[in-house]
C-alpha cells in the first residue's frame, strides 16, 4: 500500500510542516496573514519566469517573493497607502502578470491547477532534498534570530531602544518566509500555502504557554495534518494538498473544543458542548 510516491510525498509534507510551524506562529503574531497570501500569489509570477528563463522553479519563486517583500518595504516607507492596500496591489498585480506571461508561453503545457493546488504526489528526490535542506537552513536561521524576532514582534520600539535592530530582523524574517513559500509551492500550491502556515499555528495557541512551546506545537500539529491528510487522500481518493489543509482544519476545530480548563474564558465555543453543565450559565 505504501508505494514509493507516497513515501516521498510524506517526507516532503513532513519537512514542510516542520518549518512552517514556527514561521506560521510569527505570521499570526505579527498579523501577516495577508502578507503571506501576497507572497504566495506572487509565486505564480515566479513559476512563469522559471518556465520563460529556464531557471529552477524554487529559485525563481523565492526571487519573486523576495522582490515583492522588498517592494512592500519600499512602498511602506513612502507612507502614501496603508499596508493593506499595498498588499492588495502587489498580490493581484503579480498574480495577473504571472498569468499574462504564462499565456505567451505557447510552447509549454502550463497546468495551472498543479501550481494553484500543488502536486505533492509528484515530488521527486530533488524536491525532497530541497525541502529538507531549505527547511533546516530556515530553522537554523530562525533559531539565531529568535530573541530579536520575538522582541521586535512584541514591540519594535522597545527592541530598538534596547539595542536591537527590529527593521533588519523584519527583513530577514520576510526573506525566510519567501524561502518557505518557495519550497511549499510544490506541496500544497499557491492557494493553500498560507493555510499550512496559519492553521497549525492557530491550533497550537490553545495548548501553549510560551512562544517557544507554540512554535514546536505548531510543527507537531502540522506534521499530524500532513500525515492525516495524505492517508485520507489515499483512502478516499481525494486531492492531496486540499486534504492536508482539511486535516489541519479538523485539528484546529478540535483545539476549539472546551476540554481542559486552560483559557476557557476566552473560548467563545465553550458553550457548544455538554460539559458546560458544570459551569451553568458562565
Amino acid at each position: 500500500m505504501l508505494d514509493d510516491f507516497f513515501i516521498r510525498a510524506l517526507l516532503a509534507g513532513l519537512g514542510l510542516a516542520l518549518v512552517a510551524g514556527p514561521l506560521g506562529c510569527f505570521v499570526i503574531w505579527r498579523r501577516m496573514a495577508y502578507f503571506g497570501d501576497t507572497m504566495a500569489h506572487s509565486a505564480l509570477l515566479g513559476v512563469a519566469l522559471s518556465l520563460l528563463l529556464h531557471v529552477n522553479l524554487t529559485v525563481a519563486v523565492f526571487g519573486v517573493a523576495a522582490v515583492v517583500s522588498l517592494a512592500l518595504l519600499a512602498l511602506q516607507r513612502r507612507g502614501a497607502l496603508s499596508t493593506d492596500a499595498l498588499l492588495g496591489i502587489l498580490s493581484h498585480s503579480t498574480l495577473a502578470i504571472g498569468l499574462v506571461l504564462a499565456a505567451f508561453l505557447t510552447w509549454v503545457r502550463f497546468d495551472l491547477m498543479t501550481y494553484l493546488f500543488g502536486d505533492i504526489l509528484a515530488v521527486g528526490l530533488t524536491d525532497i532534498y530541497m525541502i529538507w535542506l531549505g527547511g533546516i537552513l530556515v530553522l537554523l536561521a530562525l533559531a539565531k534570530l529568535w530573541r530579536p524576532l520575538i522582541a521586535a514582534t512584541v514591540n519594535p520600539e522597545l527592541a530598538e531602544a534596547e539595542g536591537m535592530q527590529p527593521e533588519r530582523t523584519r527583513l530577514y524574517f520576510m526573506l525566510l518566509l519567501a524561502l518557505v513559500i518557495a519550497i511549499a509551492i510544490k506541496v500544497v500550491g499557491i492557494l493553500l500555502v498560507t493555510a499550512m502556515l496559519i492553521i497549525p499555528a492557530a491550533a497550537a495557541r490553545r495548548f501553549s504557554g510560551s512562544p517557544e512551546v507554540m512554535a514546536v506545537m505548531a510543527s507537531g500539529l502540522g506534521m499530524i495534518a500532513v500525515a492525516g491528510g495524505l492517508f485520507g487522500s489515499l483512502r478516499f481518493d481525494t486531492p492531496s494538498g486540499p486534504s492536508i489543509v482539511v486535516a489541519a482544519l479538523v485539528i484546529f476545530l478540535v483545539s476549539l473544543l472546551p476540554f481542559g480548563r486552560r483559557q476557557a474564558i476566552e473560548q467563545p465555543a465553550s458553550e457548544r458542548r455538554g460539559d458546560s453543565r458544570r459551569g451553568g450559565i458562565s
Partner: protein
Amino acid sequence: MLDRRDGAGALVTLRGAGVLRGGRWLVRGVDFSVSPGEIVTLIGPNGSGKSTTAKMATGVLKPSEGDVVRRAGLKVGYVPQKLAIDWTMPLTVERLMTLTGPLPAGEIDAALAATGIAHMKKAEVHHLSGGEFQRALLARAIARKPDLLVLDEPVQGVDYAGEALLYELIGRIRREIGCGILLISHDLHIVMAEADTVICLNGHVCCRGTPKAVSESSEYRNLFGMRGSAAIAFYDHHHDHEHLPDGRVLHADGSVTDHCHPDDGHHHDHDGHGHAGHDHAHHDHGPEGGHRHA
C-alpha cells in the same frame, strides 16, 4: 544634582535636538543631559514632543537637527508608552522578563519582588490588569540593570496609591542601581519630588527647574496620603508665552513670532536649581495646546 549641560560624564546628551516630520517640527531645540544617578522628568501636554524627545535619547529616532550623544555601550532599559501584545502570542510575565536578553533567575525574582508582582511570575500577560502590566514592564526594564532607564508614562493605569508606590520605587532604583532616569509624564502638575530636573516641553523647551517640595504641607498629605507624601510633588510654574492656533507664538511682552526660540520676545529661563521663588500660579493648557495664564 548638577545639571551637567556640557555633557561630560553624562549618559546621554541632547544639544539643540529636533525632529522634523512632514514639514512640521515635532519638537525643536531640546537641550538636556542625563547623568548617572540623575532623574530628569519631561512634562508637557499631549503632542508636545515628550515621546519624540525620549525616542531621540534612546536612538530610535534620529534628530533632524542638533545632535544626540550617547555614552559608548550604553545599556538602556525602556518602558514604552503603549504596548499591546497580540493575544495570539502566549507570554508569561517570566518570559517577558527575558525579552531582549537572558537574565539569571535570581535577578528576575528580585525585580518582580521589587515591583510587587512576584506572585504573578507564571501569569500570562494578557490576564494582568493595566497597573500590574505596567509593573511587569518596569520590572523587565530594571532587571536588565540598565545605565539609563527611560520610562514613558510609567504610572498610566495605576491608581493614586499605586502611583505613589511606583514613584517611590523609581527613586529607590536610582539610589540602588545608580542609573540615570528619564521619566515622561503627561501630568503637568504632579511629578516626582525626587526629580533633579523637570523639563516642560511644548514643541520646544518651555521651561525647566526643580520640583517644588510641598510634601510638608497638610493639604498635600490629605490629598495623597502619608505614604505618597515623599514621592510626589507639584511642579508649579507658568509660561511666559502662548501658542496661537495658527502655530505662531504670542509672547508676554505682546510680540508675535513664528517660533519660540529663547531669544524671541521675553522668555523666562528657569535654568539651574534651587530657585525657591519659583512659585507662580499654575496654568492650564487649552484644548488647542496653547498656554493660558492664571
